């Protein structure tokens, strides 16, 4: 999924209390927020940006039942079909004795599957290099990147951001594509969200 080089207007906020109204105003004005980079999970920011809920936990549930089924069916097959063994006079289908392993594999499948899915969705992996809009985005700044199209007037966006309370506003060119995010379509437009 190669993308071209795109232009972004980037502004940083130092206080989340300023960030929230800014996000709202920027979206209201019709600009497209590419992303906001924050040093910690800011409660409610995903809603403010109109991101849809993640369904990662559903994936976790599916992995979990896969684990349950794998464990139970495998043990059943081994002890009733492949090699029935009398252990302490227990029935071949010794369900109570299999619950512990079944449970462990349920958890194992779910946890491993979810972490891998998380890494895949967020494109996280060792040796991955991504464009960082501001080095302090992992320290104390909330960095907003607004995507520019051909029609966007940078200067207008910049002054808009400045009014919204951003500092260190600049324009950066970055390659789009999978390493700077591929969830543009997940973001609802402000108009759609509010219904006008």
């Amino acid at each position, binding site marked *: 999924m190669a993308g071209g080089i795109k232009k972004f207007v980037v502004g940083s906020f130092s206080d989340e209390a300023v960030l929230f109204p800014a996000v709202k105003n920027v979206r209201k004005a019709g600009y497209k927020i590419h992303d906001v980079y924050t040093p910690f999970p*800011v409660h409610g920011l995903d809603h403010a940006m109109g991101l849809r809920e993640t369904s990662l936990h559903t994936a976790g549930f599916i992995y979990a039942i896969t684990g349950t089924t794998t464990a139970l069916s495998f043990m059943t097959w081994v002890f009733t079909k492949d090699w029935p063994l009398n*252990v302490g006079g227990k029935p071949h289908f010794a369900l109570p004795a299999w619950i*512990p392993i079944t449970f462990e*594999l349920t958890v194992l499948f779910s946890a491993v599957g*979810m972490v891998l899915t998380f890494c895949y969705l967020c494109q996280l992996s060792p040796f991955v290099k991504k464009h960082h809009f501001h080095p302090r985005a992992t320290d104390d700044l909330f960095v907003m990147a607004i995507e520019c199209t051909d029609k966007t007037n940078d200067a207008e966006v910049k002054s808009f951001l400045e009014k919204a309370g951003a500092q260190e506003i600049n324009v950066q060119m970055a390659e789009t594509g999978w390493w700077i995010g591929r969830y543009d379509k997940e973001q609802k437009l402000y108009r759609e969200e509010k219904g006008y």
Partner: protein
Amino acid sequence: MSLLKYESQQREPLVDGNKDYHQVTEDIISPIEMKPSKLWYIGFYISVSLLLFGVYSVYREVTYGIGQWNLNKTIGWGWDITNFVWWVGIGHAGTLISAILLLFRQGWRTGVNRAAEAMTIFAVMCAGQFPIWHMGRVWMAFFVLPYPNSRGPLWVNFNSPLLWDVFAISTYFTVSLLFWYSGLIPDMATVRDRAKTKLRKLLYGIASFGWTGSTKHWQRHESLSLVLAGLSTPLVLSVHTIVSFDFATSIVPGWHTTIFPPYFVAGAIFSGFAMVQTLLIVVRKVMGLQDYITLGHIEAMNKVIVLTGSIVGCAYLTELFIAWYGQNPYEWYAFSQNRANLFSPYGWSYWLMMFCNVVSPQLFWSRKLRRNITVTFFMSIVVNIGMWYERFVIIVTSIYRDFLPSSWSTYYSPTIWEIGFYLGTFGLFFTCFFLFSKYFPVIAVAEIKSILKTSGENYKVKMTDIEKADAEKFYHEVEHAH
């Protein structure tokens, strides 16, 4: 003022001092960027020497056989399984802190969870050594894995609690590691973005998986943490439960009792928190993190210690009582003679356990003592000694006298190589912990930042207006803000 969260001023701040986000980063990350102190080197080398001694002890055991240990008939499980259970128990606090306390929304966990989780992982690594080397012919260790083989095809015995252990411990290790590391990724990115040297940039760049702090990523990250916490909570319970099944599924007097699973879990949490106290009291001092691991944190953990200590006490007494109530002569003999009789060969260990685990934690009913660092440090060691003896009592006092007096065994005490192996795991544990404290952020930076504005001292003092406001008015403001 964005009213999204609010914390009463009745609660102690979780972060002391005048902090902003940058200061938090600075405080926690800068020790990583400096050269380690002399004290660190001394500690590190002592740990490595212990580890090497352990390696040599294990080498002796492997080359000369299990006879290097003093295990005998009927004590086939001596120090090694005691140590195994002890270490696994210690390895419970970390995941408990991060998982259960996350679900219970206990804010104070943010100060201690990272180090506690690391400790968990190292403790489980130590624990795993014991059953593996106890196998004797360790080169056959892969026999525990269920794979199609040339022996029949004879599978592993899925009905055996010992095999359940294989699954439980390996799952627990894997999931704890994933949980811990997924929490570390954002903090590794913080270290990366501050790095000055090329090497650090490269290494922390690899370790941070290219984390940017994107809102969508955070959203998924939170969902992941929550589900992992939800999975880890029953997982923590299951691990020590399954360890307790090793004993409780048998018909050995003193082992076969249905309360074992929850009682083992309570004991594990108890000893785990004690170990966290031991480590963090030192870490906060040496690394100057008193603002993040405050007396409030220590007090909270002491509360958990007195709670779980009392639960364990309740279980000890239940066991003892039901042994009498059951009127099974063998069960009652194991309790009344092998354990509770102070003058029986191992009676001292039972009473030592009772004293350390049930009596001494009751000190922590006193708020003053809960907030006293010296007392806490001392108590944390006492508790860990007590919990070691709990496993020793369970194992040794139950099996040194078999059903027939003719097969009663002689007094068991370990050889130097058994002790060496145990010391070696301390070496492994502390070597790992020293490396961790040097190269990893010992406190979850991002999590501290997320609670800073509700629980930081300098922010809390500004909340007086809200604290005094009328509930009704406050309610309408909150409603309005949404």
